[in-house]
């Protein structure tokens, strides 16, 4: 179903301009929910008028102008109402109507950054932050967000309405946080973007194009953020991490959709342009010269893989030490498990297995197929065949991904004929 020319143009303009328009209007009304409604009003006006009048020369400016007019109407109406209430005799101090802060090109980027921080405010649930971010910064329609997250349109619509109300009720200011709050707020923003990326990255290619498109959307948001907050190393770290991970999209699934592990991928299929961009972003992060945070470290690990011409050239010692630093900065059982793999490659399976075995009682890894899969691999390399087979069989039981299950069962079977 192809929409008519003008409608396709309006869609395109909206997606390119939505963030700037909503951000500019939020500067006026100090409420991103209201700003988004006003921007939507402008979009509706475009849908009504452009098919007749033609698309204006500067469609973004047109939408912003209409939005501004609606915003001023709204503010004036509110001021008149407040004035009337005063006249009725409510004992309020008389105030001159406050100046309306009108958006301009000069400050629009600051406004977009404010919008990012507000839409990702920790007062909102993660799901709500994701939905608001895609809607306000990505210009995605509710049904697109619903399809991308395999949920229903009313659910997403509800989520967005509630999120706007929460922000408004909590009186969340439209600003970029400064001071001690800033680091935590920034990590909330980065978390949302990386979550969007991973939602797309873990979807099997070809399953649903909208889902793999989420990687693209997250990359775009990450690059935008790097442009808006260039002084934050972690922002560049996240951009670098996503660029390098996205460079492998073509290589990470086989012809029948089965996942291809990193070390088995055809590196010729890796996207050199994205790898190059990832390295450049990582360099920008390093130049700022702060101790590396979790995204910079993960990007550095990804860069180690990207740098190796073949799997056997991988600098595992370097990766193992990066995981060790990462385990200190952002400890998690998943990081430990990855460290076990790297140490197993760099310093022998015995050392790796020690680390992996320490995770057996970790509650958050219970039911996670990669733990037995990693242990199976290390045990197999140590010649402990029976134990290895049991681990692979257990991993196969736990995975929900059919092609992956087959790979794990094949590995278990390949260990089957070895005599005790």
């Amino acid at each position, binding site marked *: 179903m192809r929409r008519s020319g003008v409608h*396709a*143009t309006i*869609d*395109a*303009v909206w*997606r*390119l301009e939505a963030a700037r328009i909503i951000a500019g209007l939020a500067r006026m009304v100090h409420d991103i929910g209201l700003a988004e409604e006003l921007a939507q009003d402008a979009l509706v006006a475009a849908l009504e008028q452009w098919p007749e009048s033609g698309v204006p*020369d*500067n*469609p973004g400016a047109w939408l912003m102008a209409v939005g501004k007019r609606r915003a001023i109407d709204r503010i004036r109406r509110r001021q008149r109402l407040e004035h009337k209430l005063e006249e009725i005799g409510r004992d309020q101090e008389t105030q001159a109507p406050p100046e309306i802060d009108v958006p301009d090109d000069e400050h629009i*980027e600051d406004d977009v950054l404010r919008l990012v921080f507000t839409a990702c405010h920790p007062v909102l649930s993660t799901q709500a932050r994701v939905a608001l971010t895609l809607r306000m910064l990505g210009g995605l329609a509710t049904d697109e967000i619903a399809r991308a997250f395999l949920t229903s349109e009313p659910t997403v619509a509800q989520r967005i309405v509630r999120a706007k109300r929460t922000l408004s009720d909590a009186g969340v200011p439209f600003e970029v946080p400064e001071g001690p709050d800033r680091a935590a707020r920034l990590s909330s923003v980065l978390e949302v973007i990386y979550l969007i990326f991973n939602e797309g990255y873990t979807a099997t*290619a070809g399953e649903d*194009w909208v889902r*793999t*498109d989420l990687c*693209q*959307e997250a*990359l*775009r*948001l*990450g*690059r*935008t953020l*790097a*442009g*808006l907050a260039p002084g934050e190393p972690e922002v560049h770290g996240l951009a670098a991490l996503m660029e390098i991970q996205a460079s492998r*999209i*073509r290589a990470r699934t086989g012809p029948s959709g089965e996942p291809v592990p990193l070390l088995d991928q055809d590196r010729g*299929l890796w*996207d050199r*342009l994205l790898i190059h*961009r990832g390295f450049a972003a990582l360099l920008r992060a390093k130049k700022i010269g702060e101790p590396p945070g979790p995204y910079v470290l993960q990007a550095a690990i990804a860069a180690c893989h990207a740098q190796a011409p073949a799997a056997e050239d991988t600098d595992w010692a370097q990766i193992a030490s990066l995981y060790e630093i990462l385990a200190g900065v952002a400890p998690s059982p998943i990081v430990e498990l990855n460290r076990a793999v790297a140490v197993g490659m760099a310093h022998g399976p015995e050392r790796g297995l020690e680390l992996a075995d320490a995770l057996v009682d970790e509650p958050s890894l219970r039911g996670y197929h990669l733990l037995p899969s990693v242990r199976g691999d290390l045990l197999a390399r140590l010649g402990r065949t029976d134990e290895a087979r049991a681990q692979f069989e257990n991993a196969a039981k736990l995975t929900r991904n059919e092609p992956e299950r087959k790979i794990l069962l094949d590995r278990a079977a390949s260990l089957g004929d070895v005599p005790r």
Partner: protein
Amino acid sequence: MRFLMMTTDTGADQGPPDEAMQIEMGRFIEEMSKSGALLATGGLEPGGARITSSGGKVTVTDGPFAEAKEAVVGFALVETRTREEAIELSKRFYQIVGDGAGVIKQVFGPEDPMPGA
């Protein structure tokens, strides 16, 4: 989706670009880079070398070539969500540079079916 936008030589004699236009173009390029849309861009030398391969023999001819018209003189590699978005960016480009002509072609990526596949 990736698109290669190429500007072609229209044959018209264009004087040196004026300063105001260059500033505006600089701002536009910066905005496109920051938004992640612009992956790479550059201008191309007018002549270049032409390479033909025929019957196993490769011939290299150095320019300039007589038919300069329609030769590609500049390019931008952009990443957008739809073809229409790429076209919108292109329109903004021509609003800044004024008269000119170009071609937009999709560059096939991992998510696109390869032609003939």
